[in-house]
């Protein structure tokens, strides 16, 4: 029976009580001792240790009714009964267990006895086996030793055979040129032979081998030296030789010298960058690669490593590459310098690009080398040089076009008598120049094209664009134009006009056009094309424009001067060479005056083709009449003159002085404005002033004065229309006639009407 047999109706307290009692029995009282103690102090607790039946009973009797007591009694009885049965069950169970345990122990006792017997038997058997085994091994010992010895002998014999066969094999290899095999075979045998060299037979073999290997090395060296072998063969050779313990340094040298001779052969034949790139640089790369493979990147095997070869070899390689590259570069540079023709820049740029790109390969192979940077420098120099060449080409072009223009100007003048084509010449000239400049820009632009490797170098991004192209090419060219224009002014000044005046005029207009539009156009174009970022200060457009304007002004002034001088010269000659005292009565206008008017008219046409009309002061519609009155007044003065009143000269002085007070001072060789009227005014001023000064030096007779009167009237009739202020012409002509009258021995002027008749007639 087990505890499970307890009646199912028994309450948890009952079971618990059983539990705790069992625990108590087995000394397990860990749970709730304090509570138990608290409980146990109560003498009425039926389960507590201090239970006092008397107290309990008394208490029950005192507290409970009969009925309750009855109930309590029956409950008590029930409990006692259940406790009894519990006790019984426990005892029974324990008894059963004791019995089964006793049985088991007995059975074990029997089994152990049997096992002991079997173990005894086993140990006996083992002893027997040991004995046998010992006996067998004892018998087999001898044979085993013999076998080991035999197999050792066999390997030895095999090795010996190899050794004995070695010379023959090497020979055969030599015949077949299988150098690699031979070397590896020899390498294997080398140590052994070395070790047993004291034995004569081995010594023989070794000597044989040596001879053969020597021969082989000889052959290798031969091959090595042989020019025909390719770099790959060569590297193979070197590898083998290295394995043959050839001194590495010597090999390096030889290798490099050999490579050098081959590369130099390339260099000598080097005609063009293309070939240089394709052959030289690639061969160089190959050499570097194989060299590195051979000497530098080798796994460091014992003896080689100890000699510190990689470092030495690396140094040698650098020196080698540098010297060769230097020679190559000098050749390239010479070649580039020969590339003077500016026709096709793209070829050069492509060549430079290829050159540069190939050199990049060297960078990859040889990171520390200065070669690529040198290469870049060369490219940069070439670009600079190129810009210079373009500039000079532009300048030559400019000069050539000017020569053309000069010829064109000379030709029609003979044929038509006027520079009718000068307008067209100007446009064609400026177009020529602009187109040329544009094409040059386009050519130069190739340097910065995206697909060109060196275009992203900082030089080509910054300095090349701003300093090189913008400043060095465009700005310099514009400055050159201005400067050469200015030179025309200076050179012609002293040597009497070697430059045709029409060219001066044309250039002046050209410079003016540059000032107004072309310069800013060109510079904007440049800036746009080259995306110039101005890190360094560049010439501003305004400065260039100012320079161009200055040049234009100077040219125009010079033009006025030259033309003025041409006319002046005519007038001066005409005044100086004539005997004015003994001249005849004037019958017509002197031819030189007609010539002056003709020339002035043709100048007017010439200037009109290139320059705008310009403003002139509004002149009265009856200008001719006014002129008449001016003349009559001067005539009156002259008429008074012979009356010999002492005050007469004073009066004339006074009159002219008063006149001068109210007229502005006339600057003769003064700057002119950029228009036709101003130019013509300048020329006429110069001419008439010369006329005046020349007249003042001469002495006139009566008819001399009259001739001057006629001439001046004629000039007056035709010249006023060219100038901005006709009063100027009047004033100067008045002065001339007045001065002539002063310088006249017999001042009796001609009648105005006669003068008019003469002038109208011719």
């Amino acid at each position, binding site marked *: 029976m087990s505890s499970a047999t307890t009646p199912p109706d028994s309450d948890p307290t009952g079971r618990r009580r059983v539990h705790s009692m069992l625990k108590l029995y087995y000394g397990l009282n860990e749970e709730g001792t304090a509570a138990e103690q608290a409980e146990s102090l109560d003498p009425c607790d039926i389960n507590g240790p201090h239970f006092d039946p008397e107290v309990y009973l008394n208490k029950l009797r005192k507290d409970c009714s009969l009925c309750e007591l009855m109930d309590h009694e029956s409950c008590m009885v029930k409990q006692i009964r259940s406790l009894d049965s519990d006790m019984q069950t426990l005892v029974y169970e324990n008894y059963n267990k004791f019995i089964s345990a006793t049985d088991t122990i007995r059975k074990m006792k029997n089994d152990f006895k049997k096992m002991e017997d079997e173990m005894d038997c086993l140990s006996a058997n083992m002893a027997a086996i040991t004995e046998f085994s010992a006996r067998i091994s004892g018998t087999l010992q001898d044979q085993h030793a013999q076998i080991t010895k035999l197999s050792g002998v066999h390997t030895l014999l095999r090795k010996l055979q190899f050794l004995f066969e070695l010379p023959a094999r090497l020979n055969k290899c030599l015949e077949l040129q299988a150098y690699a095999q031979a070397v590896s075979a020899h390498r294997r045998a080398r140590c052994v032979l070395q070790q047993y060299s004291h034995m004569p037979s081995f010594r023989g073999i070794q000597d044989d081998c040596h001879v053969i290997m020597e021969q082989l090395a000889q052959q290798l060296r031969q091959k090595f030296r042989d020019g025909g072998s390719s770099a790959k063969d060569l590297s193979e050779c070197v590898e083998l030789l290295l394995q043959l313990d050839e001194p590495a340094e010597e090999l390096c040298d030889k290798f490099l010298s050999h490579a050098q001779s081959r590369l130099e052969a390339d260099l000598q034949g080097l005609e063009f960058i293309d070939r240089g790139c394709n052959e030289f640089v690639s061969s160089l790369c190959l050499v570097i690669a194989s060299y590195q493979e051979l000497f530098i990147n080798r796994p460091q095997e014992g003896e080689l490593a100890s000699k510190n070869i990689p470092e030495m070899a690396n140094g040698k390689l650098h020196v080698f590459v540098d010297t060769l590259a230097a020679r190559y570069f000098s050749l390239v540079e010479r070649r580039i310098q020969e590339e003077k023709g500016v026709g096709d820049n793209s070829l050069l740029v492509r060549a430079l690009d290829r050159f540069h790109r190939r050199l990049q390969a060297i960078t990859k192979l040889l990171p520390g080398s200065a070669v690529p940077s040198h290469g870049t420098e060369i490219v940069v120099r070439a670009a600079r040089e190129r810009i210079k060449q373009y500039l000079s080409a532009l300048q030559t072009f400019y000069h050539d076009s000017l020569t053309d223009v000069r010829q064109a100007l000379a030709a029609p003048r003979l044929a038509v008598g006027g520079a009718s084509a000068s307008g067209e010449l100007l446009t064609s000239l400026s177009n020529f120049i602009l187109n040329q400049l544009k094409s040059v820009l386009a050519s130069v632009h190739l340097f910065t094209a995206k697909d060109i490797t060196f275009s992203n170098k900082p030089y080509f991004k910054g300095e090349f664009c701003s300093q090189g192209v913008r400043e060095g090419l465009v700005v310099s060219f514009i400055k050159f134009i201005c400067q050469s224009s200015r030179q025309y002014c200076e050179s012609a*000044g*002293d*040597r*009497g006009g070697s430059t045709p005046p029409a060219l001066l005029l044309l250039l002046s207009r050209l410079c003016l056009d540059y000032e107004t539009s072309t310069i800013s156009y060109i510079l904007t174009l440049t800036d746009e094309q080259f995306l110039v970022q101005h890190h360094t200060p560049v010439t501003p457009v305004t400065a260039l424009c100012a320079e161009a304007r200055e040049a234009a002004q100077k040219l125009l002034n010079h033009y006025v001067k030259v033309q003025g*001088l041409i006319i002046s010269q005519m007038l001066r000659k005409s005044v100086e060479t004539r005997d004015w*005292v*003994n001249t005849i009565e004037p019958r017509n206008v002197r031819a030189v005056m007609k010539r002056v008017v003709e020339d002035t008219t043709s100048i007017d046409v010439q200037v009109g083709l290139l320059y705008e009309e310009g403003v002139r002061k509004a002149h009265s519609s009856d200008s001719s009449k006014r002129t008449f009155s001016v003349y009559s007044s001067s005539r009156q003065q002259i008429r008074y*003159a012979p009356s*010999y009143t*002492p005050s007469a*000269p*004073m009066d004339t*002085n006074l009159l*002219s*002085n008063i006149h*001068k*007070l109210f007229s502005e*001072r006339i*600057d*003769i*060789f*003064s700057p002119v404005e950029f228009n036709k009227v101003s130019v013509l005014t300048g020329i006429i001023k110069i001419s008439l*002033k010369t006329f005046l*000064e020349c007249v*003042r030096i001469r*002495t006139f*007779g009566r008819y001399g004065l009259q001739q001057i009167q006629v001439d001046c009237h004629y000039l007056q009739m035709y010249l006023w229309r060219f100038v901005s202020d006709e009063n100027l012409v009047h004033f100067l002509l008045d002065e001339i006639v007045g001065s002539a009258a*002063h*310088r*006249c*021995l017999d001042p009796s002027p001609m009648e105005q009407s006669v003068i008019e008749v003469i002038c109208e007639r011719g």
Partner: protein
Amino acid sequence: MEDDAPVIYGLEFQARALTAQTAETDAIRFVVGTQSLKFDNQIHIIDFDDENNMINKSVLLHDAGEIWHISGSPADKAVLTTCYSKTSESRVLTCAAVWRMPPEWESGSHESPDDSSNNPQTLELLCHLDNTTHGSVACVLWEPMGDGKRVISLAENHVLLWDLQESSTKATISSSATLEGKGQLKFTAGKWSPHHNSTQLATANDTAIRGWDLRSMSQIYCIESAHGQLVRDLDFNPNKQYYLASCGDDCKVKFWDVRHINEPVKCLEEHSHWVWSVRYNHSHDQLLLTGSSDSRVILSNMVSISSEPFGHLVDDDELSDNEESQQEDKGKEPLRDSIIATYEEHEDSVYAVEWSAADPWLFASLSYDGRLVINRVPRALKYRILL
């Protein structure tokens, strides 16, 4: 104080001949010759009273003809030469003569300064520089700092060296030279160099400047195309023996070192018409006066090529003449070449400018309308040069 204001004197006639009275070192005196074909020509002697800023004039008659050139003897202040034109048989010829001013002119004219009707005295003719065989005379040059015994006349293409004898009453040609060449050669101007013991002469004809050695009467140098056009005048630097200034119809003033004649040392282009006259200041050769037919007179300061460039530029052998001012000027910051002033008092072409012989800070200019203007170097500059 309007001390710097110009003083203007008006002549009744047109005039282009002006000279300072070289031998006079006390009074500031200029001599002007008039040009008139119809009236008797005059010589105006103009005394400038510096203290009162006043002008005193005296007039002498020069009835031989209109005066083209005038120059005073360096030894005798009463003696002068004129080049005048004479018309005879409807031919105009320019002659030259040596004259003596009558001794009373000074006192006489002071009493009645503007009485021109009061029969002005006439110049006393000493001698003619007879030129009938040589043609018109362009100018007469006195030997600089000489004893008034030697003159040179430039007549057409001849250089004539005259000896004046018997108190200048007799003139004989001692030597002559003739410029040969293509075309009609004619001297326009000349200058007797004060250096080299007065043995050198410079002449101008057309665009060329020529140097002559008076001992051998031979050409020693020739600056072909010195100017783009006619050369109008020359002057020697009084302190630097090889330096020469020239001016001409190309509106330029050029400075030459006659040892290196290929290029001018310096070139000024300030005038807007022909430059007719150029004069170095006698003591301070950086001061240069030019007169032009643009009616302007320009005073320039050419320090860099003067004998006083304030420093190392001076050749040692050229120092001697000007040592005094050289020392004074040391240690000062150098002036730069510049125009000091442009004088616009004239209304007509200025044909002659001249420094005063007595006061180195004073000069006169003459324009064709007969206006003589006397100006001073600006005080600021004067003190700067002196101190």
